[in-house]
């Protein structure tokens, strides 16, 4: 018998990250491999192109309407930074206030612990059905799978989440998890999976929404337990906030006897007043509306109105590891509006599934690797052309390109630490750095690049078939033949040095 060594728990900057084997933060393919397949899906490209261009236009219009957008954005950034700097104090205050108003606060170190807590709370009510409001945190920890493993039936009630659940699919967008499906595909899923659905159902979005209403109405009315996430939690008053559109959130937050809210610890804001900033930034950035149809807030339990049992689960699952990264901690400021996804040229083409995490797009490319430890998502920081469109639209001014660049270096440095022999890339970049920092070597190297003229055989471009990594370029683009003389050489020849 051989003793099995337990796999080393992953850490990031000395703090535990989101554990492996649970939840949806890690894909089973690298980004370039996953994207390669997605890029061949013409329907996906058309769906994403249509949806993201629609929302980009709407967002731009309502953002331009506010004369003080820049000031709101800066206040949002500063509020988040100030909150993170005293996160422990704010969490303790939140706990005190929620408890004082009849709520019960639970703390979860990671996905497994949060799933156990929620499962136990649901089981204690004696019901076997759970209705859910769309929540990124519960997607992240794989709560549905955990509840189902315990024999419970879970009903997603957000339209897009319902489409994903009925289609046995995965979410591909933070706000609109079914953005990769068009109306015809959604009609097909509903016609196939909703019992008793109108056989004449068309692909008119209104009819599809009505089919979802009919399907879920009964479940809302009989639900005894609901699980939600939270957009904000106000420490000074213990007020929780859910921002939504369809009313499914209100159904879940209002009708059941028991409400369980799972919230990442970074969602706390210090004061009620802070919502005056975020409730302006979020809807305009998110759905491109002046205000979303419904925002619900509640503090603990209100006699005679809504659930009489309220549990708040505060989730770490790698967030403290993100907080430990002085450059990357800004990613915790994210209010999950998904504006960065909607403007990202990489997301628009590769689609959300290519990121392998419930957090896709630019924010996902920084958040996922920090939550899991960079090496578990090492291809994501490179899944960006660093065009900066994400930073421009971020309502709390997260400098995503700078964090991407920072995480690329964290990955390169981790590989250098962990491997006995450097990678070919590291050898090349180190060599090039040496050359570029010594003008004499640099001029020799430039001359050597002229060897390219030999393989060009007098043609203006180099041959298409070149070895890797150059082949990554030449598969789709010509490479010019190097000139006879560099500019500096010719200048020095003409003017002296």
């Amino acid at each position, binding site marked *: 018998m051989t003793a099995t060594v337990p796999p080393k728990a992953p850490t990031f900057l000395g703090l535990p990250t989101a554990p492996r084997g649970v939840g949806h933060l890690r894909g089973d393919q690298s980004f370039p491999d996953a994207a390669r397949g997605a890029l061949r899906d013409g329907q996906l490209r058309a769906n994403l192109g249509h949806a993201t261009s629609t929302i980009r236009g709407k967002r731009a219009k309502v953002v331009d309407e506010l004369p003080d957008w820049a000031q709101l954005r800066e*206040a949002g950034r500063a509020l988040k930074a100030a909150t993170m700097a005293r996160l422990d104090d704010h969490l303790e205050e939140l706990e005190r206030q929620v408890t004082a108003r009849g709520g019960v606060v639970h703390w979860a*170190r990671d996905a497994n612990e949060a799933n156990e807590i929620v499962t136990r709370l649901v089981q204690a009510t004696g019901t076997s059905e759970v209705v859910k409001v769309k929540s990124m945190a519960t997607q992240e920890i794989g709560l549905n799978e955990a509840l189902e493993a315990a024999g419970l039936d879970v009903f997603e009630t957000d339209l897009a989440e319902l489409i994903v659940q009925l289609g046995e699919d995965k979410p591909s967008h933070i706000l609109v998890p079914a953005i990769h499906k068009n109306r015809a595909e959604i009609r097909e899923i509903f016609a196939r999976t909703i019992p008793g659905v109108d056989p004449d159902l068309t692909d008119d979005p209104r009819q599809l929404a009505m089919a979802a209403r009919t399907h879920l109405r009964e479940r809302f009315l009989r639900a005894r337990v609901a699980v939600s996430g939270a957009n904000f939690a106000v420490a000074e008053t213990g007020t929780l906030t859910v921002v939504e559109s369809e009313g499914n959130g209100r159904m879940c937050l209002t009708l059941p006897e028991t409400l369980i809210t799972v919230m990442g610890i970074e969602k706390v804001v210090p004061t009620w007043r802070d919502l005056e900033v975020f409730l302006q930034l979020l809807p305009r950035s998110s759905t491109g509306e002046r205000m979303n149809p419904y925002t619900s807030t509640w503090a603990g339990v209100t006699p005679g109105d809504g659930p009489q049992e309220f549990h708040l689960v505060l989730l770490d699952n790698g967030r403290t590891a993100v907080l430990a990264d002085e450059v990357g901690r800004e990613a915790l400021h994210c209010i999950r509006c998904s504006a960065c996804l909607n403007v990202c040229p990489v997301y628009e083409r590769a689609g959300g599934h290519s990121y392998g995490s419930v957090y896709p797009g630019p924010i996902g490319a920084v958040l996922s690797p920090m939550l899991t430890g960079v090496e578990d998502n090492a291809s994501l920081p490179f899944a960006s052309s660093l065009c900066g469109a994400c930073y421009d639209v971020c309502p709390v001014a997260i400098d995503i390109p700078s964090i991407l660049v920072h995480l690329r270096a964290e990955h390169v440095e981790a590989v250098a630490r962990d491997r006995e022999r450097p990678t070919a890339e590291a050898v090349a970049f180190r060599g090039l750095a040496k050359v570029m920092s010594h003008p004499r070597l640099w001029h020799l190297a430039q001359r050597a690049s002229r060897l390219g003229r030999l393989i060009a055989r007098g043609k203006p471009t180099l041959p298409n078939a070149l070895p890797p990594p150059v082949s990554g370029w030449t598969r789709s683009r010509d490479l010019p033949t190097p000139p006879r003389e560099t500019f500096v050489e010719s200048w020095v020849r003409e003017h002296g040095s």
Partner: protein
Amino acid sequence: MSAREEVLSRVRQALGADRTPPEEVVRDYRLTDGRPAGDPALLELLVDRVEDYQATVLRCAPADVGATVRAALDQGLGSGWTAGDVVVAPGLAEDWRPAGCDVDDDRPAVQLADRAASVTAVAVAVAETGTLVLDGSPACGRRALSLLPDCLVCVVTADQVVGSVPEGLGRLDPLRPLTMVSGPSATSDIELQRVEGVHGPRTLLVVLAG
């Protein structure tokens, strides 16, 4: 160590020993709209913004709220409605209520789904975003009242209409269960195209008095 202690100690470890005061938050965005609550221009703006969400606004003099609520119900339910179709918030002003209508009481909330329409007051309305806020007070009713009937009629008085979001939030009590309503329920989940009417009331009618 308990999970609580451990998470808090991780936060402290992550932040490090340097506990210099966090940066000052500058609130140089618009704190007020500049126009007083109830300003005629704000009422116009509210109407414009609420109608932009495909909701209907009926304006009336303060003395005519009762008749206008009935007119709103005519629009929402068709003229054949009866008092039994409508449930109102327990604290709604007597002269705003349709005669003989049902008043919400301690019945199980889900029973409100049997009613075709509900009528409530609001706590505050924000003109710039077309938002009505219900605060669970007797005049606004419990949250289920404005959720389950398919047609919602909200009565707003001019003095409740403020310009901006900061002014609106400043008038609210964060300890109450609040519902901010901006138009009928809607979804953008299919091709990011907005469609009005999903799980919440599919019809929203606003009676603006003053």
